[in-house]
């Protein structure tokens, strides 16, 4: 997987992870992948719903040591 951009949103509470992710995704091209690191557990459902609403694809997600990793491919 080619990661174009990385966003560290660890320690941030809702709504900031999504706010920052939206800004970051606006800076990459269609088909490129953004990696986001989040610790807010509420992000799990929010990222899914946000990506769905915007047409983006979460091509992978995982949890390691309390950190959620999302790999989002821009529509």
């Amino acid at each position: 997987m080619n990661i174009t951009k990385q966003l560290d949103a660890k320690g941030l509470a809702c709504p900031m992870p999504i706010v920052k992710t939206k800004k970051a995704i606006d800076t990459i091209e269609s088909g490129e992948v953004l990696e986001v690191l989040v610790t807010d557990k509420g992000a799990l459902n929010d990222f899914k719903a946000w990506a769905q609403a915007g047409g983006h694809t979460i091509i992978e997600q995982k949890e390691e040591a309390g950190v959620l990793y999302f790999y989002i491919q821009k529509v």
Partner: protein
Amino acid sequence: MAINTWTAADVARKVIDNEELFILDVRNADAFEDWKIDGHKFEYLNIPYFELLDGVEEILPKIPTNKEVLVVCAKEGSSIMVAEMLSEEGREVAYLAGGMKSWSMYLEPIKVGDLESGGELYQFVRLGKGCLSYMVISGGEAAVIDAVRFTEVFTNFAKEKGVEIKHVFDTHLHADHISGGRTIAEATGATYYLPEKDAEELVFDYTKLEDGLTVQIGASKIDVGALYSPGHTIGSTSFVVDAKYLLTGDILFIDSIGRPDLAGLAEDWVGDLRETLYNRYRQLAEDLIVLPAHFMIIDELNVDGTVSKRLGDLFANNHGLNVEDEAVFRSMVTDNLPPQPNAYQQIRQVNMGKITPDNDEQTEMEIGPNRCAVR
């Protein structure tokens, strides 16, 4: 425009006083569908906050200017953001401090009635989750029944009333919410009772709640009497307080009945449920006032905010008490049940003392509606 901050207590007043309110819920559609703040006269608009990042202009026409508007989210962060955006557009709005998390935790103590010799019975209504706890007060002493985990609400209330908590009961091993019973007992030196049949896997000391047990509260003659009434769990026990009130736990609700499946033994327990509802309860006085451990929908609230109804009225009107055919009844309470409560297996483990999650984890487990009933 200034942004107002409302507490869960403010919202509870709106619900109980039957007032109008417009709620802009900015959580996910799924979360909103699953669980929201219910009010008789509330109106709702659900738009996830992430659809409003570019501005709120599009939704302005949908937000009334002639009634109070409350923005709600899971914790509060997103609702503050959206409230600020609306405020910048000249709208006066409020947000709910602590979001649905604080709503889920809030308890409103409401007096149900007076007992003999100056005693009182209080119902603690957890509006956000539908849990109902009780405190019987008399002669400087108190008994607490089915306390939820916000134990300071009960200990502080007892302090305010100048009474000492002597007895703490759980009608059964709860699966939808974490019991505060053990903690209250430890903090006050009170005795903690649980039905033995529900306590087989308990890892801490307790006192057996047995059929026919009677305790007196205070010097006066307020009896709290236990009545074995299995079906929701195999140990489920009801209480008759002051020969006037019937605390039914999760066996009988106002507009529904208990479900027998939360310990994975629906087929085994359905017969007990039938026996309790169609035989044991039938032998009680119809003038007893039923006080359940849950409500499911806001329509079950009385005008004063309490949840209670005469037993005879329930025999007449509660669908679950009027299924003549046993096979139909069996099918109703074992097939097509609603989804089980969030994390119910973990919650049972917590109530057995087997796991001790921290406060945030407990909050997560209790997210969502209680779902203990079959309608």
